[in-house]
């Protein structure tokens, strides 16, 4: 019985965290011409595999500095990886001269500022921070 209780507790915990993670959304500039991105497109952009979007334009993804907990949430949601794994991935590419991680910014406000003034910039923010200056292009909850 105790085992079952723990199991339920774990499931509940997992459910709660999953819901919390889903509060992040990916945004772009309203004039970017990007309506929606698929999960694979977001993964390709943030893992540095492809910058070119189906629309033909090159996107510039923005990432958060490691101190930011949204970053951990974002990668858990996107590829189910923790930050040491994401850092391992980029370190492998960087130290073998194959690429470097997305541009790092300090805060969600900075993400909003850059995305609202740059057609190519893509960022992730908490859903509650959404406003008219940007367009939501990927919603993990959907």
């Amino acid at each position, binding site marked *: 019985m105790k085992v079952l209780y723990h199991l339920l507790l774990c499931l509940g915990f997992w459910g709660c965290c999953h819901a919390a993670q889903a509060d992040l959304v990916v945004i772009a500039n309203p004039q970017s011409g990007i309506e929606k991105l698929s999960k*694979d497109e977001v*993964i*390709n952009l943030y893992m540095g*595999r*492809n*910058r*070119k979007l189906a629309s033909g334009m*090159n996107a*510039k993804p923005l990432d958060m500095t*490691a101190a930011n907990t949204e970053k951990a949430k974002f990668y858990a949601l996107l*590829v*189910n*990886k*923790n*930050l*040491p*794994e994401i*850092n*391992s*991935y980029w*370190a*492998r590419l*960087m*130290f*073998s*001269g194959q690429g*470097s991680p997305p*541009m790092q910014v300090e805060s969600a406000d900075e993400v909003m500022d*850059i995305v609202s*003034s*740059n*057609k*190519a*910039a893509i960022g992730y923010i908490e859903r509650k921070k959404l406003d008219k200056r940007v367009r939501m292009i990927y919603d993990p909850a959907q």
Partner: protein
Amino acid sequence: MLTLATQVHAADDSKPFTISGFGTLGVVHSNTRNVDIVRDLTQNDGVGYTRQTDFGMDSNFGLQLNKSVSDNTDTALQVVSRRSANKFQPEVTWAYARYVPNDNLQLRAGRLGFDVYLLADSRNVGYTYQWVRPPIDFFGSLIISYFDGGDMVLSTPLSGGILRAKVFAGVAREKTSTGSQDDFLSLNRSRLLGGHLEYQTSNWIYRLGYSQLTFKNEFPPLQSLLDNLRSPYLNAFIPSAAGLANDLSLTDKKFTYLSAGVAYDDGPLQAQLMLNQLSSASLFFPTNRAAYLTVGYRIDQWTPYFTYSASRPVNKSTASRLPLGVNPDIDMLAVAFNDAISNQYNRQTTFSLGVRYDLTEKSNVKLQVDNIKTDDYFLVRNNQPGWNGKARLISIAYNFIF
């Protein structure tokens, strides 16, 4: 777009270059003192015979400078200190300029990593993979880590994934241990050529590769045998002896690497299977094949993993083609000939169990146990008479990046 470019540029201008680095502090203990296990063939001594507990096998330190020259062009310099033919003397492993005109093309020139296999060019960066060291049976025979030349990568999206083709050419520079103390094979000016085809989807990477190295220099321990085989005295009796020497010699001989690999990466699960074949146009180096399978699964900060790796000689025939029983000197030569070749057979099997623990976002510590069984002595050093071919290593490594 313009503002972003300006901002990126501003960031570059404020910092003339970025500096980053990596390192490993590793300690290995062997249960036998009858043999030295080495990380790869460039190491002259390892753990066991020379030191039963060793700090030098896996420890290394690397520094990298990156400088962005324009939006499409950047340069990099990397220096690594590790146990190799030059002991721990720092080596320049990277010094290149890269030009990326668009998403589909990348050109580089200078000193570049030799990425004949997946992970081959980042094998010094212990932080980036789950093991303490890349499987010795597979990566241990790789004697080149960089070359001077150029490479080109073409890539294109293909049905949800990315297809990449890479070609490279250049000359090797490094030295590798010959198996006897203070005796090295110089790869200097040996020509290198190769490429691979890679297809990557969200969770899978498939890669097929081919590379060839044309040796410029002779393998030093062979020299006296070659001189004997080429002596006019011997050729008066055995006219084929000089031809045999030419078949055995390494100078101007081609050495080829064929490889195939598949890696699966899905959240906490990582798995890799790689296969390779090393062969040469020299009688001296018989064809060897190797493979490894590794699986790891992350649970919070812990990633337990296992690896099975093995290398095998493909064909064990050491017919020296020298007539035996005619003359004791010729008999001795035949024995030397057979010994030279059989030293290049590579039959070793390793089963490893380990766990990686993520200490911080930029450091981890690993504990690994390797059970090694060796039947041919290509990948080991200083093997003593009476060694039973078995070794068990216990390794702890602390890895970091900055």
